[in-house]
């Protein structure tokens, strides 16, 4: 009896010790993780802080706090190209999402649900596999000449087409995964009811793949909004360029307006960060799903 109770006490003691050690490990793991999270957030936060700081406080050797809205007001002023660039960026994103969404949905539907001749299947599949591997910079010389020949150099249409080409393979893969999940019985039922293939696609399939379409559109929109290389090389700058190129043009060899620079950066980034909080599950699904393929 006594021996038994003694054994129990030592066991619970050992258990408590083990538990305490485990919780200590948990806490230190959490501390390391929190530190890492800070490393990833602090640089962004610092830019947002600087966008409310006066240039004098930014340049100062000491730690000063001189809050102002002048940076943001200066960027939004009438004589700045910022407004035109913002409109350009929004137009390019809207055009690319529409064109890319249409083309990718149709192609993915064909790949997933319809019978295609082998050479069509192979060429669409090969494009989806190869195009994402090519460095965009290697394609720039060709795009440049093609846009000159078609008279689209420097136009929003040209940038919409280029952004669509860069995003279309990935969007098509995402949409194909979406279509593959729709049971084929639905398609058969629709065709027995007498619906044509186009009508089946529009009224039966499209609502069912809406989540995939939203994910791929969101992804295309973010990639297009962030796109820099094509905007830089295919426009002549100023009011013809998208916002990302406008930001880069504020960095000049002499006299950089650091406050305004930080303000433009924040304005370009904060909307996407807010959207990402609301749709984080979708964006993560898009990133990881397409990669697994």
């Amino acid at each position: 009896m006594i021996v038994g109770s003694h054994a129990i006490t030592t066991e619970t003691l050992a258990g408590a010790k083990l538990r305490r050690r485990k919780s200590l490990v948990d806490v230190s793991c959490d501390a390391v993780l929190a530190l890492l999270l800070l490393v990833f957030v602090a640089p962004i936060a610092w830019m947002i802080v600087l966008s409310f700081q006066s240039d004098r406080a930014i340049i100062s050797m000491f730690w000063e706090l001189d809050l102002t809205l002048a940076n943001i007001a200066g960027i939004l002023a009438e004589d700045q190209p910022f407004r035109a660039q913002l409109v350009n960026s929004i137009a390019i994103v809207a055009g690319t999402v529409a064109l890319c969404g249409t083309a990718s949905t149709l192609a993915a539907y064909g790949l997933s649900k319809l019978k295609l001749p082998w050479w069509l299947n192979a060429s669409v599949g090969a494009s989806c596999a190869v195009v994402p591997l090519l460095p965009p910079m290697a394609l720039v010389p060709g795009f440049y000449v093609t846009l000159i020949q078609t008279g689209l150099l420097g136009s929003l249409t040209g940038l919409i087409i280029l952004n669509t080409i860069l995003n279309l393979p990935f969007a098509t893969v995402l949409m194909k995964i979406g279509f593959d999940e729709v049971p084929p019985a639905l398609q058969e039922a629709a065709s027995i009811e007498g619906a044509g293939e186009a009508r089946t696609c529009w009224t039966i399939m499209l609502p069912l793949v809406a989540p995939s379409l939203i994910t791929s559109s969101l992804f295309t929109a973010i990639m297009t909004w962030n796109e820099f290389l094509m905007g830089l090389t295919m426009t002549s700058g100023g009011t013809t360029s998208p916002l990302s190129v406008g930001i880069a043009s504020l960095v000049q060899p002499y006299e950089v307006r650091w406050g305004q620079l930080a303000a433009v950066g924040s304005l370009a980034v904060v909307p996407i960060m807010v959207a990402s909080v609301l749709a984080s599950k979708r964006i993560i699904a898009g990133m990881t799903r397409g990669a697994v393929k």
Partner: protein
Amino acid sequence: MASTLGRRSSFFAKAATIPFLILIVGFGGYSWAQVVVMAFSHLRIESGNFVWTPAGLDNFRDILTNEVALYSLAVTTIFVVATVALSVVFGLVMALLVQRSQRLNRISQVVLLWPAIVAPVVVSLIWLLILSPNIGVLNKLLDTVMLPTQDWLGTEVGAIVAIIIVDVWHWTPVAFLMLYTALCAVDEEAVEAARCDGANEWQVIRYIKIPMLMPAILGTIFIRAVMGVKAFDEMYLLTAGGPNSATTLVSLHIRDVFFDQLNYGYGSAFSVLIVALMSLIIGVALVVQRLRRNRPFSAARKVQP
């Protein structure tokens, strides 16, 4: 599906792929053909029009004698190896930490998305605000704690280290998300069984989790390597290839040659060379993978009964 399989492909089926093919094969393929043609030509602009003359292999011969071109291949290799290794290691560590943390699990997934979706050009701006010799907060911090300040972007080694750090900061979240998703799919029963057999946490990670994650790790390495070759935006603003061309990655070299030196043929030839090298490396990787899988006594075979 049976009903569609029996039929021949319809007009609608073919029409559905037309927009895709016009854009990718038509516009994209035509543009790529231009690059290849340009690579074997001398190009001049006369009164607004391109004048093409065949050049044979001249442009490729120029690459071999151009020091900046050869250097850019070397520095890109260093950049890709360093950024892939660091971002996959950090991503793996963070995936393991996030999975075991109850308190920070949700917030980590939201917060770690941010660097990956910030525009690359803004990423370089963010790091310019940190590393700049005039206003950079890093020097300010060092100064406050009485440590010597550095001109981070002004020295050659410093600039290379800087672009590696920036790239790792930017893309580790992508590696994290891919590895974390794979980690969540690891069979809990195997982990529990190992714990019952007395394996400690480190042994579980080393002998159960990492082997089961291996396909995801290899996939992440591949994707990050491709991203590394593509890198352009971050360096364009941060270092512009300098100082003394120390950070001239292949993308920056192509832009410099094509748009600043207006050497169209040479720029295109370099593009073709990069794509050829990438295809070669990817092809070798695929063959090696296939050979390893077919080896009679490999680990993959042993698992299967």
